[in-house]
């Protein structure tokens, strides 16, 4: 009886232990599945180089992590390098090192020492700078001003902004007056009195499209191609330990004109023609629309790391094209042999969907009288014969790197192509047969 009781107790204890174990394992597994973002990452103080680099058409901001030993900059352009003390932390969601700028963003005072590969040393002082552009034509108006010029340009911008604010206030007043006069005229009309109806609402004020950063302080660099070493020297002459970096200043390998090629048969699926040595192939009789833009070709690793110091998957032996500004005011020439056989201008086009349930569309020249806005602009080219296209500027000079071959493709049966590949086998057969006829068999004794 006692033995049975003991066994029962043991079983009960075992099942309790089993329950506790299951509970413990479940809690442990639950804790594993909790999102990592719930944990506050540990922040640590670090010196970083915060950069605003000119990427060809706009400025891009990034910062170089302390464990990264190389900075990359595009040659012959103004770039901003700011020595900053901040708090950095590993963000496990994206597994990137992030800076907690709101918590700490202090400019570290000092002198930038720049050492080039020939041993020449240059010292740069921290200066004021502003970056400004006009939103209507950002690429054409983008400018970085430094020193006294930065202060002056910012003052001009500030004055323009204040003047716009005043004009906006006046406009608001005019609109208020107009509304009041309109209401008064309406009320007078209900009483049977005749009151002059004011002339239309005041014309709207054009939007303020100018943009400027505030006046900031940093080093502004504009360097030729080369390898450099840089570091920050404190006012007491000591070197900031984490500031020493290798600086790789690179230049574009090639400049050219790229084309966004829109086939009329699939206008929503354009192809890019970046390389000036590209040829454009299409079915004979098909129409394409070309949208040109300026571009340059740079090393993928250098350019990628310049705009994002933590970028991965970049290769040193590959090159990428960077698109900059469109080419709107040029003419396209079609050349056959050495003669210009046709020209095309940049025209607006409208895509008209077919009415009814059937799918399809037609691309028509844009007519402002019937349509509100064009769908796209482009140079229209129809492929009938092999030709060469090029852009020419207002002076009639060809635009460098804008030449492309355009060729209509002839349809060929695939079996004919494969049959052509059998040529070596045919030659081999002939050679072996010839050999066989020449070799005389040894007469048997």
């Amino acid at each position, binding site marked *: 009886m006692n033995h049975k009781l003991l066994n029962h107790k043991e079983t009960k204890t075992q099942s309790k232990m089993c329950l506790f174990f299951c509970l413990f394992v479940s809690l442990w597994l639950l804790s594993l599945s909790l999102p990592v973002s719930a944990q506050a990452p540990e922040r640590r103080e670090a010196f970083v180089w915060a950069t605003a680099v000119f990427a060809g058409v706009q400025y891009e901001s990034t910062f170089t992590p302390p464990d990264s030993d190389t900075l990359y900059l595009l040659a012959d352009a103004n770039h901003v390098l700011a020595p900053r003390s901040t708090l950095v932390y590993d963000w496990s969601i994206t*597994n990137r090192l992030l800076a907690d700028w709101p918590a700490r963003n202090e400019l570290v005072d000092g002198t930038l020492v720049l050492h080039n590969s020939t041993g020449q040393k240059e010292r740069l002082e921290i200066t004021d700078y502003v970056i400004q552009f006009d939103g209507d034509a950002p690429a054409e108006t983008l400018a970085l001003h430094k020193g006294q010029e930065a202060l002056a340009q910012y003052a001009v911008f500030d004055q323009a902004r204040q003047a716009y604010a005043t004009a906006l206030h006046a406009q608001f007043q005019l609109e208020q007056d107009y509304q009041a006069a309109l209401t008064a005229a309406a009320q007078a009309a209900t009483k049977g009195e005749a009151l002059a109806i004011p002339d239309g609402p005041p014309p709207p004020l054009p939007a303020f499209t100018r943009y400027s950063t505030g006046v900031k302080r940093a080093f502004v660099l504009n360097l030729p191609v080369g390898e450099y070493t840089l570091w920050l020297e404190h006012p007491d002459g000591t070197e900031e330990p984490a500031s020493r970096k290798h600086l790789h200043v690179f230049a574009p*390998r090639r400049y050219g004109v790229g084309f966004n090629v829109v086939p009329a048969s*699939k206008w929503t699926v354009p192809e890019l023609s970046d390389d000036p040595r590209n040829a454009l*192939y299409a079915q004979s009789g098909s129409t394409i629309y070309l949208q040109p833009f300026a571009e340059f070709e740079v090393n993928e690793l250098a350019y990628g790391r310049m705009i994002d110091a933590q970028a991965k*998957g970049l290769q040193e032996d590959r090159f990428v094209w960077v698109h900059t500004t469109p080419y709107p005011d040029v003419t396209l020439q079609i050349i056959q042999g050495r003669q210009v056989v046709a020209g095309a201008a940049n025209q607006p086009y409208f895509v008209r969907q077919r009415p009814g349930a059937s799918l399809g569309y037609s691309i028509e020249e844009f007519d402002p009288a019937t349509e509100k806005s064009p769908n796209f602009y482009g140079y229209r080219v129809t492929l009938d014969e092999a030709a060469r296209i090029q852009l020419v500027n207002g002076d009639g000079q060809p635009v460098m790197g804008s030449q492309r071959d355009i060729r209509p*493709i002839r349809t060929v049966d695939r079996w004919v*192509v494969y049959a052509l590949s059998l040529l070596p086998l045919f030659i081999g057969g002939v*050679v072996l047969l010839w050999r066989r006829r020449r070799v005389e068999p040894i007469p048997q004794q």
Partner: protein
Amino acid sequence: MIGRNVIGWNVIGRGCRMASARFALQLSDRLYASWQVARRALISTLYSPGIYVISTLTLLAASTLVLNNLAFLSENGLLVLTRPFFLPAFVCGVILSLYLSLHATLQLVREREQGTLKVLLFGPVDGVSFLLGKLWSHSILYGLAAVMVVLWAVVLGQMTNLLVQVDLIGVMGLGLLANGGIVALGLFVGAWGRTARTSLIVLALVLLLALIAQFGDQALVQMINQGVGQANRQDPVRFLRAALDGLHGLILWLSPLAQMSRGMDALLVADGAALLWRAGAIIGQTALYFFGAAWALKRGGP
């Protein structure tokens, strides 16, 4: 005193002239011997079906690449290409070089196993002229196949209206140099390995390693770009990538095909200096493998 000096200079001059004459004689003998070896190997290869079959296979592979582009064009309505025959020509070059390298290795090993090499080396042929003959014959074979590839491209270009430009000859020229390097590597492996089986296994491993290093790294980069491995600071394949990157860098200096690929890039952007540099690198690699083969043959004996 002056008279004694004059006599001394005369003796040195006569010695130099004799040495240079002996060197010229040795060189002409060696070139003649190597040409005889090359002629023999060339005739033997041209009278066997292998080279024709492999040339046909390379053109079939190249045709498939061209047809793939044409199929894309008919689907998409538009095709933007830089040089439509560069990749097919490169593929032809790679397949031909690999085959000719294997062929050279087998020829060398077989001639040693059958005792032909011993007979030749006891005669007027030395190791260097024998290997030079093999290199020449396989370069001529590649040249013949390259002419066929260019002809194929010209005819196909006429048929389809795809552009065939003069720089295709540059690609085949680079291929000819790279083929020399690959064949020299095959000769090195053949001279070093004592049996046909060992040589073939070693050559296959070397070529496999080169291909993994060349394309494995790119595949990994693509994988990471597509988010398979998540581009991040704690990259899950970081070590593998670093290892393949290192191997890739090493292979660049050891593989003539890797140099050929970069030479083609230089050809595309018309960078003459880079093209010369790549061609020089391939010649350097060929010389390295060739003298390695000569050393291995001398060390191992016939």
